[in-house]
């Protein structure tokens, strides 16, 4: 025990060594996010004739550690839009709070003409682009699903660089490699959206979640899925992958203890 107030309540130096002050770094350049820490993996989504289906699993990983297993990565906005988050989870939480305060403020002015998916995408894209331009990116890849001003299905993406694009089917992260080819088989172009039913869209999205679980090591078999139509959002956050078949795994050679 000494007489310096700053040492009170701290472990004794003679027993535990002096306190490491390095993380109270006061000089040197300001640092922003250099890489994501706790991450969510793919989000997949597909349009159909009356709306959009979107899904993401419930896992948040810390590197290769499956850290949180009941994370809701699909977030509802004013009962008409769903935002799917891939990438850093803390940045997702920040955006979630941002959207909540936006929704509260929107309802102050008037409850008529609520923000639709298209409006929300424009807003989020500008937030993302602003943050990347400040060299302080929000480390996420977002899919925004809902309806546009004319009640037509709307699906678009915004990422940490502020890049935006729209397509009948979208998938972030690993889904870009594994899910998109499957989704595009059903929905090759905008015209095909009219020919796809809700059931077909849900089925193909679930199929994609399964393939992603087979091949993406940072994925899990519990997931959330949402269907957005004119009459609102149906969000299920506690789904389990069904009809898994690991038969293909037996033919995989060259890993672990197996030899050729």
């Amino acid at each position, binding site marked *: 025990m000494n007489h310096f107030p700053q040492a009170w309540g701290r472990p004794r130096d003679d027993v535990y060594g*002096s306190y*490491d*002050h*390095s*993380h109270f*770094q*006061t*000089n*040197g*350049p300001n*640092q*922003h*996010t*250099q*890489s*994501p*820490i706790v*991450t969510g*993996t793919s989000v997949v989504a597909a349009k159909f004739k009356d709306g959009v289906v979107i899904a993401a699993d419930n896992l948040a*990983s*810390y*590197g*290769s550690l499956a850290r949180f297993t009941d994370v809701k990565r699909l977030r509802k906005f004013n009962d008409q839009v769903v935002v799917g988050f*891939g*990438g850093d989870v803390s940045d997702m939480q920040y955006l979630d709070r941002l959207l909540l305060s936006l929704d509260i403020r929107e309802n102050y002015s008037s409850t008529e003409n609520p923000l639709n998916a298209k409006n929300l995408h424009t807003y989020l894209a500008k937030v993302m*682009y602003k943050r*990347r*331009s400040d*060299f302080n*990116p929000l*480390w*996420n*890849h977002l899919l925004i699903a809902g309806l546009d001003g004319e009640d037509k299905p709307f699906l678009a*993406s915004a*990422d*940490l*660089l*502020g*890049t*935006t*694009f*729209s*397509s009948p089917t*979208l998938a*972030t*992260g*690993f889904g*870009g*490699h594994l899910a*998109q080819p499957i989704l595009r088989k059903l929905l090759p*172009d*905008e015209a095909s959206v009219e020919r796809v039913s809700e059931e077909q869209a849900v089925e193909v999205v679930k199929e994609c979640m399964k393939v992603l679980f087979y091949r993406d090591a*940072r994925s899990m078999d519990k997931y959330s899925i949402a269907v957005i139509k004119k009459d609102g959002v149906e969000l299920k956050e506690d789904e389990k992958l069904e009809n898994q078949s690991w038969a293909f795994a037996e033919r995989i050679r060259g890993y672990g203890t197996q030899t050729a």
Partner: protein
Amino acid sequence: MASVFTGAPPQGGPGYSFKQTPTVALSGERQHSFYPYTDNGGSTLGISGADFTILAGDTRSTHGYNINTRYAPKLFKIGGEGPENKGSRIVLSVVGFAADGDALKERLDTIVKMYKYQHGKSITVAACAQRLSHILYNKRFFPYYVHAILGGIDEDGKGALYSYDPVGSYEREQCRAAGAAASLIMPFLDNQVNLKNQYEPGSGTGHDLQAKLAQPLPRKDVEDLVRDAFTSAVERHIEVGDGLQMMIITKDGIEETFTPLKKD
């Protein structure tokens, strides 16, 4: 998206469970591992005629070997009325980093619209072209990573075409290709539009050869050239394909066409 999902545990921070924990603050500059740009591929092309200008671009958007979408326009009407830019006579094409391209388009569009509110007349292409140069140059230390081409009709009713580098250097040209397949398309244009390496038949050999003089081409020929240029580029460049968007600017307005390209 490899940069988003590196899957690596946090690095560089103090790890308190290890002995080699730094006891002094890190000094010196650290490199940002965040790179604020990406290349979204694609190609654009513009050709001006006697009383028209054609701008064209493919609609594929890429990220590495991935296709983001098969329909992402690179051509934007500038000015005019409302969000649909009704009555506009100026077209901007951007290729490179799409987010910067969108931001640049948005800025130029509002400026051109504000110009009309403030001065009561539409901006000329020449003025718009110079303004675009200034926008790019003002951000030269953190550039809009795009190759822009601006097209319209000048005050004499002639087709006008301006091309830019990312930091605002610009010139008026007869034709210009930009983007991923620029190096494939530009020599083709040099030959077919500016008639480079074409000589008058029978004018002799060696120094006697008389170069063919470039004339403004008719609209039909230009449209065919553009389509040929892109179908060829699609064959040889993986980032080009899916669809061809064309905008033809005449004194009567802007005509827009869409032609499918190979999706492979």
